[in-house]
């Protein structure tokens, strides 16, 4: 059975190109991708994950507002009963160019399992996700 994942771009963010490519790449790699598209709220992600019983949520944020948009996201997942769902985030997460280790730390502290810098290739995340899912299943 193919693992389900929810994919989307959070907040008021309209960047659609990466999202379309990620859908294509993860589908090709054997995942069952539920793509909620751009401009999705935390609730949109959570509802889709619950409805489809997804194993992971992949959040994109390109436009720089991820810090505001993701606040309390992990907590809301918990509340909704998504206890050990894997959460990744990638894109251009903050406004401007900032020290990457700081940014990563900030988002890990928010509850993301993996945080990807600008320009990450889908292949990298696919590999990571397969590994993380395997671990989880053990």
């Amino acid at each position, binding site marked *: 059975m193919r693992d389900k994942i929810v994919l989307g771009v959070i907040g*008021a963010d309209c960047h659609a190109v990466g999202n379309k490519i990620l859908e294509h790449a993860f589908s090709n790699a054997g995942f069952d991708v539920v793509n909620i*598209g751009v401009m999705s709220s935390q609730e949109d992600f959570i509802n889709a994950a619950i409805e489809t019983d997804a194993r992971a949520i992949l959040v994109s944020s390109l436009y*720089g507002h991820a810090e505001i948009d993701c606040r309390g996201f992990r907590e809301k997942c918990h509340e909704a009963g998504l206890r050990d769902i894997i959460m990744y985030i990638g894109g251009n997460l903050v406004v*401007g160019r900032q020290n990457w280790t700081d940014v990563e730390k900030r988002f890990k502290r928010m509850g993301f399992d993996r945080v990807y810098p600008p320009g990450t290739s889908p292949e990298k995340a696919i590999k990571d996700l397969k590994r993380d899912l395997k671990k989880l299943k053990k």
Partner: protein
Amino acid sequence: MDLANKKWSEERFMKVRKEVLSQWPTGRDVDLGEAVKYRIPDRKNFCKKLREAKRKGITLVQPRAGVAVVEKHIELLKYLQNVGEADLLPTTIDSYTRQNRYKECEIGIKESKNRNRSMLNGFPAINHGVRECRRVLEAVDLPIQARHGTPDARLLAEIIHAAGWSSNEGGGISYNIPYAKDVSLEKSIADWQYCDRLVGLYEEMGREINREPFGPLTGTLVPPSISNAVAILEGLFAAEQGVKNITLGYGQGGNIVQDIAALRALEEQAQEYFCAFDYRVELTTVFHQWMGEFPEDESRAYAIITLGAITAVLAGATKVIVKTPHEALGVPTKEANARGIKATKQAVNLTYGQKLVSKEIDTEVEVIKAETKCILDMVFELGKGDPAIGTVRTFETGVLDIPFAPSKYNAGKILPMRDNSGAVRYFEYGNVPISRDLKDYNRGKLELRSRAEKRSLCFQMVIDDIYAVSKGALIGKLK
């Protein structure tokens, strides 16, 4: 459908206006009478600057820039003006404002002040209000234009024009389909009619304001005839509402011949349509440096920026919108922004006065115009002569279709692809009504690439093309 490409009556405008100005408290401070009297010196007048540049055959240089807090924004603009030597100033509006989510802007402003760095990706003009926007204009010596991506920009337009900003970017198609997910075109076109009518009113009261539809759309492999068709439609919408000074734009594709041809085709063909409808408008053009994905390496970014600047001049653009060496990574620092402007200015001045005349360019002009006409003919047909109604219907049917756009009102069936010289061609047409012979032309060009790369045309090539520039080439070739 209520929509029509028809100048709004004063009554309708004023009725809607009341509602618009009450959308956020700062709307109360907008006073049209006072605003018209507010004196704007010539050097801060967008229309005058553009007019002079066009007369002299100069290409003006304009950056993008905006941060959350007024003081910081003034500092930024002054830096771009004094150190960067920009010819025109922007104010890029943040993404919450673009979605009319002013409460989130409040949070963004507050946190930006607390952390002493901008938490917003632009300047929240509505939250700051007329007085503060005017303070920005008074602090600088150049005209200011609002640049954003707002489907419903009515309140924004009210505030910035009342503040004396003499240009507004956007349009009912170009600031919806690439920028929104579920705003209907009926609504966005009507809301932009409001913005245009507001400018028309100012014009009637003696204040010149420039309007600029957003040419590049998704910035990603858009065939020139698609963006030109949209630009011409938005030009018609604006003109109908009384806009007199219009700048139509195009985003660099990367093939020099096609880019020169696209801007020339746009200017000529738009003028033809304006004439046909008897609109008297002053038309100028804007060329956007590469709007797709950038490489992270700054030296490589400079090369793209410079190619864009050179092409802009060779295409005879009235102005060029500048990218920065930080593009791939995030909103640029003011220093990086100034560096992009400087490289652009140097390139513009090196190529000033140079012209390229060539049969290949002429051919591309003809092709682009013919393709554009295929689309526009269908718009008028489906709209029974009304381009606004036609626009809605063509998007519904996928006759107009913008590649990679997020809107659910966009068919998303067409696929563009680069040919072997990097020109953007149609690979899949969806329902875009390109004629047989033009399809053959497109196909022929793509076949050359297929043969050169020894692979048959496929979706993977489209993906390769999307990544190509950021990976260091124009065409996503197999190595």
